[in-house]
């Protein structure tokens, strides 16, 4: 049962991200919470494709006669990381525009001001 620790680490990451989304009021902290949830999902994708005692799926200078790890979840994780970068860049740009128009980054006050 202690061998399932990578899955518990994924649950801790996603749990911390959801806690930040619910209970924090600053916009930058909400952006960090979204990034934490995306990192937890990427880690979960990679740990699904592990074989015991295997090496990376590359044939250049590999040791002889050893099994290889499943390569498909790693390819899907590459796409997911790039999409996470695009999402984070757009969230931070919207936060900058909001700060310029309202003068504050607190979501309670932005909800009250209504231009």
């Amino acid at each position, binding site marked *: 049962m202690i061998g399932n620790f990578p899955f518990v680490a994924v649950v801790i990451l996603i749990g911390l991200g959801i806690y930040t989304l619910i209970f924090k009021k600053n916009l930058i902290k909400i952006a960090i919470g979204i990034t934490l949830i995306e990192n937890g999902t990427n880690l979960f994708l990679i740990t699904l494709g592990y074989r015991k005692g295997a090496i990376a799926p590359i044939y*250049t200078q*590999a040791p002889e006669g050893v099994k290889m790890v499943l390569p498909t979840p790693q390819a899907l994780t590459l796409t997911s990381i790039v999409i996470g*970068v695009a999402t984070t860049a757009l969230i931070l740009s919207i936060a900058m525009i909001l700060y310029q128009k309202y003068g504050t980054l607190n979501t309670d006050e932005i909800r009250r001001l209504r231009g």
Partner: protein
Amino acid sequence: MIEEMSRIVRTITTLIYGFIAVYGFYVIIHGHLTPGGGFQGGAIVASAFALLLVTYGNKNTQSFLAKDILSLLESTGLVLFITFAFFGLGATFFYNFLSNSGGLFGSPATIGVNPGDLNTGGTITLMNMAVGLEVLAALGVIVLTMSVAAETIQKKEKP
């Protein structure tokens, strides 16, 4: 990011910036032999751009990295990627028509453990370079635009 940093940081940056860019291009080109590829190498070169931007401030970097040229490079990369996908339309979309054929990147492959040969790979190597160019320019445009906007917003709310 308005004023530049101290003399020690500026000296080290001028020495190291070229090595980081060369390492990034190495990771892009050898994408079919070692771990890496287009996306990873493009992120490494974009981190060299971010190092330049933090060290020298906003005005001195804009004479070195123009936003128009980077935007043109990004569009070229994406159009090249789609063109290489259309070339194999005899069999399928994205067909690898250059592998094991003796043409541009088409030496026949050796099965099993081997030190890699750069001439193999077919359209994978060409697509690596196109995607590397696009990711490099995209991340550079993002970093440059956000730093110029941050300086403008900070200047406007000073009084």
